[in-house]
């Protein structure tokens, strides 16, 4: 798939904080410059019990870069990362938007105390700020922050593992996803639905084994459209970044059962509407 054009990363990405994805080169970027900064690997803090930036982190940042012009036009007021780990993703998001959208407020959460401290270090090393909270998903924030978050990004623990490894102490919590890798994902989705504003977007890293079709169908029932922003196969994993958005939000009308984003004013043509993707696998659905 042509969505895999950026596959020469991530190894090179540690050498430079500036990169231009092929997506950016080919996309209409409007008035926005074609390159942008992301977190520098050498400035990302690390800790033995914190997940270092890896292929899945890079694919999420590359997906956000590919969508950067849309994010700027979207003018989010509040962005949140659930499971911020080393801080690589939230720092990159803040950096890539800071020039054209400097007034966004960022929040980041993680269940691992070492991770939140590491995230703060990474943010500070890059001169950006996010409000960091040690918590399980958004526990404690969820009720008051409901409906206020315009963009949520998540690289969840998606690896299929024995159930007992889920939400273990330390670094295990960053990848252990239980049966089909869905245990934590399935807890995050309803929280995201509660937190997202009427025009909210959710970007999530998902593995083919997590059954993305079923996830999209379930979010579709809650009124979300979805599409794959980027997919990439590594030696070990087939990763996808799926973007969810509230269908009909632009028109103010809830729409159910339709996918593909035709109700929004944005052009999704340069992407891969999940519609066709769903059709392939939806024989029994």
């Amino acid at each position, binding site marked *: 798939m042509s969505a895999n054009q950026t596959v020469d990363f991530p190894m090179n990405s540690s050498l430079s904080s500036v990169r231009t994805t092929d997506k950016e080169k080919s996309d209409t970027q409007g008035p926005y410059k074609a390159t942008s900064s992301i977190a520098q690997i050498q400035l990302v803090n690390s800790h033995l019990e914190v997940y270092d930036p890896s292929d899945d982190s890079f694919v999420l940042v590359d997906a956000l870069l590919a969508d950067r012009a849309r994010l700027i036009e979207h003018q989010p*007021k509040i962005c949140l990362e659930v499971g911020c780990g080393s801080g690589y993703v939230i720092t990159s998001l803040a950096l890539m938007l800071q020039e054209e959208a*400097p*007034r966004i*407020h960022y*929040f980041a959460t993680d*269940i691992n*105390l070492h991770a*939140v*401290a590491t995230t*703060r270090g990474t943010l500070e090393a890059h001169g950006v*700020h996010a*409000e*960091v*909270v*040690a*918590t*399980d998903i958004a*526990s*404690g*924030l969820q*009720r*008051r*922050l409901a409906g*206020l978050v315009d963009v949520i990004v998540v690289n969840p623990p998606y690896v299929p593992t024995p159930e007992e490894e889920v939400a273990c102490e330390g670094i295990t919590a960053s990848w252990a996803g239980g049966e089909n890798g869905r245990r934590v994902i399935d807890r995050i989705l309803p929280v995201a639905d509660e937190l997202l504003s009427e025009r909210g977007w959710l970007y999530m890293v998902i593995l083919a084994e997590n059954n993305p079709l079923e996830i999209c169908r379930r979010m579709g029932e809650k009124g979300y459209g979805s599409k794959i922003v980027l997919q990439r196969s590594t030696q070990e994993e087939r990763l996808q970044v799926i973007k969810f958005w509230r269908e009909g939000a632009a028109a103010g009308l809830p729409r159910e059962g339709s996918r593909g984003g035709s109700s929004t004013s944005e052009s999704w043509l340069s992407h891969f509407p999940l519609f066709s993707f769903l059709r392939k696998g939806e024989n029994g659905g």
Partner: protein
Amino acid sequence: MRLLTHNMLACNVKGVVNGYPLRLEAEVVAERPADFNADFLRHIFARIDWKAFVGAARSLPEEHAVADLPEDAEPSMLASEDFLRRFHHALLELHVEKGALVCPETGRRFAIDKGIPNMLLNEDEV
């Protein structure tokens, strides 16, 4: 932790009904300038629990305590640049680096360390 975040946090212990607002016990506060953005302030105003906000702002250690916020606020005040500046400063420029958040119902303490509130629960609290 900004007062914005304090305003959004509630006690998350299972069974707690009146877990908001958390009482702020700030030991170390840092002031850092933030970009003034009237649009954001007007947007977030409707969602700020003003009583909790003013209570937290006044509770800060003496040198950082904010005394010039009105007891009550109403949307018409958002037309005043002076009001917006004071709102902005208290909401976004004061960072509680060390201290605690205390549940008003149970007294459960949530530590704030290095600016990060710890809302993690013990097994028997979930």
